[in-house]
């Protein structure tokens, strides 16, 4: 039968042995990690972004690399999912993007700070994480309606980055605003232009935010939307 001193030896021996292995693996990991996290891409901007991330405790609502809180979206791949343009509009006024939904804190970041946060999130998204977050493996096949919808041409990049979060076309996209299929026959080009220039001015209290679109982008959008009949 095991004696007390043998039991003690088991405890002390095991602890020393496994601590040594752990330290060895840590040492090895530290050598490998620089390549996996793209240390060369960790710019001053990224570091400032992390500083903003930490000092505001974004991790108290969000997860990043799967760590944090479960109240708000996982952000490891957010740049890939939403695009930089969308995120910068979103961060200026989070509640405008998801009116009436679960609320994020309204931070009054400067444009530069927003750039830093996005640089940080972008850097995070490029880390080799052994496949996290995984692609959904039971995802439904993209609906065939997309092809069926009467689109004249591929949507402008800006539409795919920003508008799609709230509007759907051909069955894909968000549901905050109405589906835009056939909007070209509901609204004329000047009406569309006036609307996109400043929605709240056209319809006070509307949930569609003023996105401060540059003239060229707006013209491109109006042109494309008019073709949706």
């Amino acid at each position, binding site marked *: 039968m095991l004696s007390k001193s043998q039991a003690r030896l088991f405890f002390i021996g095991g602890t020393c042995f496994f601590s040594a292995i752990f330290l060895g693996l840590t040492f090895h*990991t530290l050598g490998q990690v620089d390549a996996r996290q793209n240390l060369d891409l960790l710019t001053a901007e990224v570091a400032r972004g992390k500083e903003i991330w930490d000092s505001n405790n974004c991790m108290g609502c969000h997860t990043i690399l799967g760590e944090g809180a479960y109240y708000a979206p996982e952000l490891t791949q957010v740049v890939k999912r939403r695009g930089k343009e969308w995120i910068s509009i979103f961060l200026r006024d989070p509640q405008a993007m*998801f009116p009436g939904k679960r*609320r994020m804190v309204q931070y009054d970041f400067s444009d530069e700070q927003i750039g830093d946060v996005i640089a940080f999130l972008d850097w995070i998204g490029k*880390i080799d994480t052994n496949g996290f977050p995984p692609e959904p493996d039971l995802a439904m096949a993209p609906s065939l309606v997309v092809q069926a919808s009467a689109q004249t041409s591929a949507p402008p990049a800006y539409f795919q980055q920003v508008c799609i979060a709230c509007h759907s076309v051909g069955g894909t996209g968000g549901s905050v605003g109405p589906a835009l299929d056939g909007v070209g026959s509901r609204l004329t080009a000047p009406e569309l232009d006036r609307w996109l220039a400043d929605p709240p001015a056209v319809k006070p209290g509307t949930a569609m935010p003023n996105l401060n679109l540059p003239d060229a982008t707006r013209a491109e959008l109006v042109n494309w939307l008019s073709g949706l009949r």
Partner: protein
Amino acid sequence: MKFKSQRVAYLFFATSLLLFSLQIVYGFIMGFAHLGFDVLHDVIPFNVARTTHLNLLVVWLLSGFMGATYFIVPEEADRELYSEKLAVVQWAALVIVGVIAIIGFHLNYWEGRKFLEIPRPLDYLVVVDVLLFLFNVGMTAWNGKRFTTTGSVLLVGLVAAALLYLPGMITFESQVLDSYFRWWVVHLWVEGVWELIMGGILSFLLIKLTGVDREVIEKWLYVIVGFTFLSGILGTGHHYYYIGTPEYWLLVGGVFSALEPLAFLGMALYAVTMARRGGMSHPNRIALFWTVGCGIMSFVGAGFLGFAHTLPQVNLWTHGTIITAMHGHMAFWGAYAMLVLAIISYTMPLMTGRKLFTGWVPEWAFWTSNIGMLGMTGAFAVAGIAQVYMERKIGMDFLAVQEAIEVHFGGVLLAACLLTLGIAMFIWNFIQYGLPKEEAMAAEHLRHAA
């Protein structure tokens, strides 16, 4: 109570229970936010509530451990505490740091690193406070008449916990390394050195409550904590699957963390076997309930529910979802919250000389709070499984999924009410005991003399 200075434990226990109550309040704020009523958003946004909830938890548990140590070490060393005054000073310092930290969280003064949110300048105060504590109990042990295995395991656990706080104070520019060393604190605490503290306190309680021979109890203590480190150190790898660390951690973390439940199974069998051998004849039955309950529930929460998501194939899908919150609640409850409630239940009659451990209040406190926590865990589990399926497997939008699982937080809150009721009864019982009394000591000496 054999020594007058042991009464200082009372201060720590009272603080513990006060902070626990506050923790529950913040839990409710978050539960309601998940349910769609984030009415306090402008004053206490979710991240403030969460940080406060977690830090109150850690501080009340630490306060409970400190109280336990101030009670146990004099007893094991067979002498008065080195300095009772110092212990009171240390208690006051702990409270001050805690209060500043909690207020700071509400004013955006923190480091956004889960569990380690206390800002750096306060970290140094924590270190000083812990050094004071370790010095005091260390000197007591050093100058003691004897020193037992139980006492040593407890002290080694406390010293190691203090040392492991340090890696959490290093600043990194890289999120990957930040996370890597954050786990040295968080994981190596709860699945490593805190288990030594747990083992030490459980062993003390079992020796006192069952009357089984110390040598036997302490032998098994070594075996259990041996298993803890055998599995738990390399088991840290279960947090290194997907944070940018090399692929071999999938294997190392998977294999060793899968062994971790053995240590908790050990704790459960240990408590149950010793209690049965002792014939459950100790008059303070309720303290024995909490002690044995702690062993069993730690296996359920940490061992069983930990295993449920620790293999990399599973964790890939559940990582960072409400599944983790489900496990976190039950594990902290079973292993550490129940442990502190056990030592409080055992020591209060000894410190105050009043035997308020019979009757329905303490017994109902035990059952109601445990059933409440089991209910919460169940509701979190259902919400978590639904979330994993819809968000991760099917790829639905995050907010749409959250709306779909909102209803389960109604379940969480209902069960939380039961838990709260149980804790309220426990605290009521604690208040009825009143303050420690010197007559309590006299009574003990009489009993020993007889």
